[in-house]
């Protein structure tokens, strides 16, 4: 093969590059470039027509200058001209210039589409490939519009060269990814799938990427690819190491194709056809067997290629999660890698084992490697490997080994890299909570955590320990004792002081019997830390002091003394000063009874999703913590806190963000405006620093009573609807998906109007029953398939009565409640069943977000079941303003400037239910030409995506 010499073919270019390289300074380089730019400009503008070679040379120089980081604002036309050259080298430079610069000048695309069209139909494979590569590199919507119809034809045509097919397949993939609506596979589907059988391995390698992507989007239409992929894989796996010649890489047959085939299979459940399944299991066994064979080469390329296939096979085995034998074999194989001398393999084995740990079949097998993994955590040099070891310990943790794992993680924390400390702290906190059998161990662990890595213990972690201590009677005494001991350390972390202050303020009385921790000793200990603490901690301590006065009357004078001192009562910080003044006053004027009421022990916290888990999720993205794990965590957390029942009436509390939602101990937390419901006010009280604030005393008493008197919203949405009513009436409810008010029902006798309002997870519906006749309706009753307040039994002719229904959304739902109405008109009994227009979207809170955030969240919700999609015909005129109004009525935020295509609509919102908040994103793509819509909904909960999609598909 001839060597390629420097700048071969274009001497001027080589000289120019040499000149630039010889420049001693940036200034010299810029000078040289400007000189060249002037030269090129004059050539392009000159009277003399340039020949193709010169044009190519100058365009190539411009490209080089651009790649050095300089702006290029001319030469585009010359580049476009090169496209119509008959010479490959000229065409190539033209296409390259366009592919590289097209971002900065999209106007170009229209100019070049014509040249591309010519090359595509030239029947010259080299030119066709150049054009296809250009489309694949640029992938703009304009190109999709121009070529999405043509490329499938090229891909499946019998006379297309193999290399062109390869390019066409990937070019189509690129267009499908940028403009899926424009790439209609329909008639081509079967022929594309059969490319898996193509004789040319390169064609299969390229086509399989396209097939995989299409399968993920349309699994049913492409499901025939499964058996084809299995037989292709089987042929590769069983071939001898030299059979595939060109496609054998270091004695490994077709490693990349094998990986792609195994990955395609991960789009589907295990094959149902027994023969196919058998063949596949055989392949997987062969791959596992080969891992045990002696290597055919000592080269790392050989083992890497072989192990690339092995890891992909293990991914598939884990994906199926149904073959215990294979799972255990995979685990054993990975176990061997844990001690391999290659760092790469140790890393990958740890990573892969993490997913094996979540399978019931291999969890135990993974656990046997605990010592090796702990050793990795201690000795690995590469922090990313240690990180994987920590992840794996977390994943393999269960009741049997929790104490050991938590202890190891704690000791690792002492020396852990700063970059991973916070995450480690969260993990330790979660494991300690999840597997706490005795709560003294839990308390010890968290206090140790604060001792070892106090700076990395986020608020969520120490809030959580307090929540749990408050909710568990049996650990309160121990917690008080332990925290008292921990505070004895001369230098203890401020977080320890916070926990100590809170716990002693609540439960100091439980250890006060011991003279070594008498009330005054406790107080002095806490107060000895006071001056080293930040303002929020001091504020918390002041609240602890007033609690002390209530718990231990004997400390009253000492504490009043402290409160009265100038450093408190005249503190320059307003919050501290106010507290000192108020607490002092409260302690001097209030009677013991009032004091005891105001300062009574904190009520148990309502149970929600563990805040720490939420934090870890946020840190790692939703993919990092599996759904199972979360639910398990929630369940366990529920047990820990004595279940939800102790939360009592506080179920009405709802807070907008998970971080504000804990103890809300942050000082100076702004009191949220508006929200006049008792629930929200209660939250405001919680969000004051420390316990109860004298200034809020009246408010609190008001709330405590008010909370009990407000009508508890009727929790009916959790009750399944009965299915008695006629369909026509039921479907009326769909008209109210995007609006809240209107006429729900009307016939000759009766008109029912509806007004509804929703806030957070609560709603209120006003129903107006209007008698259109001049005769009384008697024995008028309405029954909801759940309870509601009775309505007036009699409606005068021409009169209207009103009924109010309170609603609380407990969890997401798809069946709306049914309302049955019975009355007598004249002698005849009228009976009517209506579906109340309560749909899940009513509980949306709109969420505004920027484009970047939107797409990031969109990507995070990428599990297939999280997405629901519908393509449907427009049933109304496609008017942008009407669409906007409807989407706004839906309750989500309509986001502007997010979707790159201004025709599309994107929305974001969070559904508020008592059980959880479900974030949802929506994208509506109208296709005016076809009078069709494509609607895509992604939410963190699959049933919600599905339901929203169903509801909305009827609306446009």
């Amino acid at each position, binding site marked *: *093969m001839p*060597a*390629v010499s*420097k*700048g*071969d073919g274009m001497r001027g270019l*080589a000289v120019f*590059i040499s000149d630039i390289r010889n420049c001693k300074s940036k200034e010299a380089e810029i000078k040289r470039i400007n000189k060249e730019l002037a030269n090129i400009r004059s050539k392009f503008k000159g009277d003399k027509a340039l020949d193709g070679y010169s044009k190519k040379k100058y365009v190539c120089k411009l490209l*080089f200058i651009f*790649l050095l980081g300089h702006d290029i604002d001319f030469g585009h036309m010359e580049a476009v001209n090169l496209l119509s050259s008959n010479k490959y*080298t000229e065409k*190539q430079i033209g296409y390259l210039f366009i592919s590289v610069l097209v*971002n*900065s000048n999209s106007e170009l695309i229209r100019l070049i589409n014509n040249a591309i069209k010519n090359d595509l139909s030239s029947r010259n494979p*080299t030119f066709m490939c150049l054009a296809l*590569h250009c489309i*694949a*590199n640029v*992938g703009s919507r304009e190109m999709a519009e121009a070529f999405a119809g043509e490329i499938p034809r090229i891909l499946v045509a019998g006379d297309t060269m193999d*290399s062109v097919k390869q*390019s066409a397949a*990937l*070019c189509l993939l*690129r267009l499908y*990814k940028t403009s*899926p609506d424009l790439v209609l596979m329909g008639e081509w589907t079967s022929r594309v799938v059969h490319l898996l059988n193509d004789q040319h*391995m*390169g064609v299969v*390698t*390229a086509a399989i*990427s396209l097939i*995989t*992507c299409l399968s993920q*989007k349309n699994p049913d239409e492409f499901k025939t690819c499964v058996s084809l992929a299995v037989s292709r894989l089987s042929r590769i796996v069983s071939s001898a190491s030299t059979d595939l*010649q*060109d*496609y054998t*890489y270091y004695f490994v047959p*077709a490693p*990349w194709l094998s*990986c792609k085939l195994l*990955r395609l299979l991960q*789009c589907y459940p295990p094959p149902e056809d027994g023969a196919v399944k058998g063949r596949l299991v055989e392949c997987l066994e062969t791959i596992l067997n080969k891992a045990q064979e002696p290597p055919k080469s000592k080269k790392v390329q050989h083992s*890497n*290629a072989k192990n*690339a296939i092995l*890891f*992909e096979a293990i991914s598939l085995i884990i*994906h199926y999660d149904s073959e215990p034998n294979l799972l255990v074999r995979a685990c054993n194989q990975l176990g061997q890698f844990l001690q391999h001398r290659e*760092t*790469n393999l140790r*890393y*990958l084995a740890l990573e892969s084992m993490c997913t094996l740990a979540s399978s019931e079949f291999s969890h135990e097998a993974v656990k046997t490697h605990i010592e090796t993994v702990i050793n990795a955590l201690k000795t690995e*040099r*590469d922090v*990313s490997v240690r990180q994987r070891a920590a992840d794996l310990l977390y994943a393999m943790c269960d009741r049997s080994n929790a104490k050991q794992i938590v202890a190891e993680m704690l000791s690792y924390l002492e020396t852990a890299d700063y970059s991973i400390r916070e995450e480690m702290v969260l993990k330790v906190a979660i494991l300690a909570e999840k597997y706490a059998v005795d709560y003294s161990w839990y308390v010890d662990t968290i206090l140790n955590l604060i001792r070892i890595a106090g700076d990395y213990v986020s608020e969520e972690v120490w809030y959580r320990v307090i929540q749990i201590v408050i909710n568990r009677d049996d650990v309160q005494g121990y917690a008080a004792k332990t925290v008292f001991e921990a505070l004895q350390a001369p230098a203890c972390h401020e977080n320890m002081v916070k926990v100590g202050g809170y716990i002693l303020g609540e439960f100091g009385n439980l250890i006060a019997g011991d003279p070594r921790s008498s009330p005054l000793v406790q107080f002095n200990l806490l107060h000895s830390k006071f001056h080293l603490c930040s303002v929020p901690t001091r504020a918390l301590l002041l609240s602890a002091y007033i609690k002390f006065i209530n718990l231990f009357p004997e400390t009253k004078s000492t504490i009043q003394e402290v409160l009265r001192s100038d450093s408190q009562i005249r503190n320059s910080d307003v919050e501290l000063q106010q507290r000192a003044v108020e607490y002092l006053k409260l302690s001097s004027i209030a009677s013991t009874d009032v004091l005891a009421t105001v300062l009574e022990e904190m009520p148990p916290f309502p149970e929600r999703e563990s805040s720490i888990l939420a934090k870890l999720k946020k840190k790692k993205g939703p993919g990092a913590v599996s759904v199972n794990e979360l639910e398990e965590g929630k369940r366990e957390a529920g047990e820990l806190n004595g279940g939800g029942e102790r939360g009592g009436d506080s179920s009405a509390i709802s807070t907008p963000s998970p971080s504000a939602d804990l103890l809300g101990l942050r000082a100076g937390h702004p009191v949220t405006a508006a929200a006049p419901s008792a629930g929200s006010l209660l939250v405001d009280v919680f969000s004051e620093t420390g316990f109860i604030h004298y200034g809020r005393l009246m408010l609190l008493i008001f709330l405590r009573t008010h909370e009990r008197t407000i009508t508890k919203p009727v929790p009916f949405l959790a009750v399944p609807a009965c299915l008695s009513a006629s369909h026509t009436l039921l479907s009326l409810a769909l008209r109210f998906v995007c609006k809240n008010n209107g006429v729900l029902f009307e016939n000759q006798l009766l008109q029912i109007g509806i007004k509804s309002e929703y806030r957070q997870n609560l709603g209120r519906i006003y129903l107006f029953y209007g008698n259109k006749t001049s005769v009384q309706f008697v024995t008028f009753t309405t029954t909801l398939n759940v309870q509601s307040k009775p309505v007036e039994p009699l409606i005068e002719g021409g009169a209207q009565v009103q009924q109010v229904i309170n609603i609380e959304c407990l969890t997401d739902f798809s069946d709306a409640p049914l309302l049955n109405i019975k009355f007598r008109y004249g002698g005849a009994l009228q009976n009517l069943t209506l579906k109340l227009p309560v749909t899940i979207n009513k509980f949306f809170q709109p969420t505004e977000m920027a484009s970047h955030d939107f797409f990031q969240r969109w*990507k995070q919700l*990428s*599990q*297939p079941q999280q997405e629901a999609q519908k393509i449907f015909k427009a049933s109304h005129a496609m008017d942008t303003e009407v669409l906007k109004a409807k989407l706004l009525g839906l309750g989500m935020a309509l986001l502007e400037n997010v979707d790159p295509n201004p025709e599309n609509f994107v929305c974001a919102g969070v559904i508020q239910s008592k059980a959880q908040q479900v974030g949802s994103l929506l994208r509506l793509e109208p296709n005016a030409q076809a009078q069709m819509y494509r609607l895509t909904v992604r939410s963190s909960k699959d049933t919600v995506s599905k339901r929203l999609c169903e509801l909305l598909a009827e609306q446009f």
Partner: protein
Amino acid sequence: LRIKGNSMESKIRFILIQNRAGKTRLAKWYMQFDDDEKQKLIEEVHAVVTVRDAKHTNFVEFRNFKIIYRRYAGLYFCICVDVTDNNLAYLEAIHNFVEVLNEYFHNVCELDLVFNFYKVYTVVDEMFLAGEIRETSQTKVLKQLLMLQSLE
């Protein structure tokens, strides 16, 4: 059942060849970035990769992605992919690519990539397209490159 990666993004986000000093010898983007973002990514990748030594893995987490890289003399070849993608397959894809360059340029050196930058793009497009692996056979790629070389 989990699906790997996000099906609507290309697998490979970008391919970078940089020298130790941070000079870019090839930047091939498979995702839309504006020029400032590209520059930032180039600098970040350089910072992340050059601090690692031979005892480290060839993989490094990078934003929401990962970089698979390999060092050849003074050059770092980096591929940015999804965190769920197959590390070893891309690591060997790099090596396969380097072997093709080596054959094509007869003992490739950094200067070959500088003076023939426009040919390197052709090699890349033969082997990777639309962020996917297009062709893996060195024989086939070299035969095609040789054919193109002979064209005017």
